[in-house]
């Protein structure tokens, strides 16, 4: 067993969304930088405050003007300048390194109020449409292009690396390189409206072979057999005007692609567990669950219809 204080400290840093429990190249570099800066800052804080405490006490003989002046020169000016110069140099060197080009896999993520449109561009293959859940291969530098059409969002997976804004009229790039497999969580980091807090996503980092297999499945049309009552209700109530379920008549491009909804761990952009009950609740009361979302609440539908749609969506693996 590990020493208790260390375990306690690490337990304090862990979590699926923690920058201090890194699972990516950038996050590791930055966490290391943070710990180094924290230790140095701690030492400086103790020294300065210790000096101030000593200064506020009574002394036999006050310092001479000359000595006090020297303290200002060295403690206030020269030493800080040197420390800051060293820190700045390392910080500046790190920047281009973290923005070095990514590997052949490109992923386009578009921020929407309040969810994430995801499109994989595998090398040589056709683009694959998805939403609100990322799957990434471990050990590969993945190049993200980030954009938005409505308002500013910011794409942030703390365990993998820093954030990057999505700004109308611009396409920003970000490179993330996962270094271990696992389940992580990302979130929107720029205020984007009433449901800004409800705009998250899951990130699953897997072995490259598993990723290839997953991507092939994701590219395929919906797995559910046609003719389900839920599908009929889905199409009859016009859900297909906004949502796509490839392999069916639903071809909308306004809301998230639902072709493989059941394979995603969460619902409503990372905010609810993906269960039949939650799917039904989301359809009926989205306006309460997610204020100001563009999807209208379908509470007027029959409960049986809602349950059927929820059940059918649960079959879209």
């Amino acid at each position, binding site marked *: 067993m590990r020493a208790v204080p260390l375990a306690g400290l690490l337990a304090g840093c862990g979590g699926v969304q923690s920058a201090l429990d890194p699972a990516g190249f950038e996050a590791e570099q930055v966490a290391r930088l943070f710990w180094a800066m924290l230790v140095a800052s701690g030492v400086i804080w103790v020294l300065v405050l210790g000096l101030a405490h000593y200064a506020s006490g009574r002394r036999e003989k006050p310092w001479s003007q000359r000595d006090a002046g020297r303290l200002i020169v060295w403690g206030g000016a020269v030493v800080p300048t040197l420390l800051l110069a060293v820190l700045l*140099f390392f910080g500046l060197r790190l920047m281009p390194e973290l923005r070095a080009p990514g590997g052949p896999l490109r992923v386009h993520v578009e921020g929407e109020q309040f969810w994430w449109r995801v499109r994989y561009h595998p090398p040589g293959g056709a683009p694959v449409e998805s939403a609100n859940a990322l799957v990434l291969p471990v050990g590969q530098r993945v190049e993200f292009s980030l954009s938005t059409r409505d308002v500013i969002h910011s794409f942030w997976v703390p365990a993998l690396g820093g954030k990057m804004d999505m700004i109308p009229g611009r396409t920003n790039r970000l490179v993330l390189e996962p270094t271990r497999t696992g389940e992580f969580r990302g979130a929107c980091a720029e205020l984007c409206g009433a449901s800004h807090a409800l705009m998250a996503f899951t990130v699953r980092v897997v072995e490259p072979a598993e990723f290839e297999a997953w991507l092939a499945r994701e590219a395929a049309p919906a797995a559910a057999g046609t003719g389900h009552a839920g599908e009929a209700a889905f199409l009859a109530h016009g859900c297909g005007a906004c949502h796509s379920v490839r392999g069916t008549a639903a071809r909308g491009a306004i809301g998230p692609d639902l072709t493989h909804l059941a394979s995603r761990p969460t619902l409503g952009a990372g905010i609810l567990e993906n269960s039949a009950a939650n799917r039904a609740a989301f359809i009926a009361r989205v306006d309460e669950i997610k204020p100001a979302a563009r999807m209208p609440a379908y509470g007027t539908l029959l409960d049986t219809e809602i349950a059927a749609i929820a059940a059918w969506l649960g079959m879209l693996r």
Partner: protein
Amino acid sequence: MLIHNRRHANLWTLLAPPAIWAVHFLLCYVAAAIACAKGGGPWVDLTSLRWVILGITLPALGLILVAGRQARRHWGFGTDDPPHDQATDEDRQHFLGYATLLLCALSFVSVIFVAMPAITIADCR
């Protein structure tokens, strides 16, 4: 000229060294912003911009040194220790010279700081 051969220090000579920093900073920022915005894409090579930044930085440092030489003269070459708190023309001049000299040092360091990105960063990524 404000930083050279002034008989008397005043508030403008005091502000000159940080103003040199400000102009240097602005030129670096504008040059880089134009080079990257007009260059097209994150992989634009910035070799010429880095030479431009060097070409702005050396004169800026030179001007600050010139200002520092004048400030040191206004300070009376340090013959008189601070605090320069007498209500005399001489102490007022020494004080302004000394404060300007300190500002020269800060501006000098800050100009070097601001030029450092040109050492480590070679494109618009």
